[in-house]
């Protein structure tokens, strides 16, 4: 290729490569693990995907809390299956992240030593059975809105993991909504329990979409590179629009006096989010941050003998195969 400043000007090469990379994204091509990509794209994806994987794993804790106390066998089977799905989702995304040249072990170390972030929603406690319903309805509902977008992300392995996850996520949302509908049409105490859970989970669920676009430093870049197709505020609005009617259908009230339909934009306007609370939880001072991290560390530590035993068994199998040969 002709190059006036000499054949090996690294700055110029980089600029040309970035231009070609961005052109590929503009053409809607999928970026695959071995393709050239800007270092920054790789870093941003590792950050975003590992946080996503960690969220799936930590998300098992608040729900696992209620497996032993599920009100019926049917509910218990569903909840176990759902928690198992979350583990699977974590593994899909860790495996996708590894294609970017990072070790899963490094990522898990970052989670266990507290340097990695995960979705703040899981730092809230599950106080009653209705919280399990609310997590399925709101938290998985919000996750569906986000992941449906990410299923079109420019990075192939991430997009493919999202397609797989989205297929399973609908079961999560429906089992949660069914729990809420059942409680809401039950005794006055049951209805009060459902409403209390809605009151506590609604605002943290809106926070799941992240800061306002104007305060979201990564958003522009992620959109330019086709990782995100919509902004935090656009996704949040979509979630609100979907959820208002669902709440109405089961006679539960979303705890926002400013909720109002705007016929011109066809959007439900909502009140201001408590961003001070959002940043407090993100920075580690939510109700359960320390508890979640301690539980993850304990689970990892307690599982060590299983890993040791599996390793020893495999080594023994290999030895007996060699001897037999």
């Amino acid at each position, binding site marked *: 290729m002709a190059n006036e400043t000499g054949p090996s000007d690294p700055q110029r090469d980089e600029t040309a490569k970035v231009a070609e990379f961005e052109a590929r994204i503009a053409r809607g091509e999928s970026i695959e693990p071995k393709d050239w990509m800007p270092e920054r794209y790789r870093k941003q994806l590792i950050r975003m995907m590992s946080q996503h994987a960690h969220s799936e794993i930590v998300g098992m804790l608040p729900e696992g809390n209620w497996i032993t106390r599920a009100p019926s066998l049917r509910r218990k089977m569903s909840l176990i299956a759902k928690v198992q799905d979350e583990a*699977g989702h974590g593994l899909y995304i860790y495996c*996708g992240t590894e294609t970017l040249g990072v*070790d*899963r072990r490094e990522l*898990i170390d970052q989670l266990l030593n507290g340097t990695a972030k995960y979705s703040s929603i899981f730092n809230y406690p599950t106080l009653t059975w209705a919280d399990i319903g609310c997590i399925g309805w709101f938290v998985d509902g919000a996750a569906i809105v986000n992941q449906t977008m990410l299923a079109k992300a420019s990075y192939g392995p991430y997009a493919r993991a999202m397609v*797989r996850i989205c297929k399973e996520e609908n079961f999560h949302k429906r089992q949660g909504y069914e729990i809420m509908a059942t409680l809401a049409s039950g005794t006055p105490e049951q209805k009060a329990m459902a409403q209390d859970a809605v009151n506590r989970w609604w605002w943290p669920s809106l926070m799941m979409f992240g800061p306002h676009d104007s305060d979201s430093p990564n958003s522009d870049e992620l959109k330019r590179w086709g990782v995100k197709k919509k902004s935090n505020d656009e996704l949040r609005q979509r979630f609100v629009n979907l959820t208002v009617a669902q709440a109405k259908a089961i006679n539960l009230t979303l705890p926002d006096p400013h909720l109002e339909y705007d016929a011109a934009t066809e959007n439900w306007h909502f009140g201001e989010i408590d961003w001070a609370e959002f940043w407090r939880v993100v920075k580690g001072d939510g109700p359960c941050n320390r508890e979640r991290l301690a539980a993850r560390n304990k689970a990892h*530590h307690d599982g*060590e003998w299983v890993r040791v035993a599996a*390793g020893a*068994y495999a080594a023994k199998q290999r030895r007996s195969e060699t001897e037999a040969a």
Partner: protein
Amino acid sequence: MRDADNPADSQWPLWEVFLQPPNGAAHEHAGSVHAVSAEQALENARDVYARRGEAVSIWVVPSSAITASTPDDMGPFFDPGNDKPYRHPQFYKVPRGVRVF
């Protein structure tokens, strides 16, 4: 908490997972798993990628055993096929009036 020097605390080798759907289509890459042996890789692949009857058959292959083409030689590597349009049916003319061929 985590003992980085403990060799037993390993994430184990990586295996690529291929699933065959029940409709008779070919095996397709689904993702990867870490496992200590081929047998465990199969079990992990079943638990991670086939919880809802997605597969009638699973292949697991050590990731290190896969040889793949690289994006850099994509153009020249596939070139022998690209410049032979006569391999496609559209290259050939069909007389007017023949509707179903």
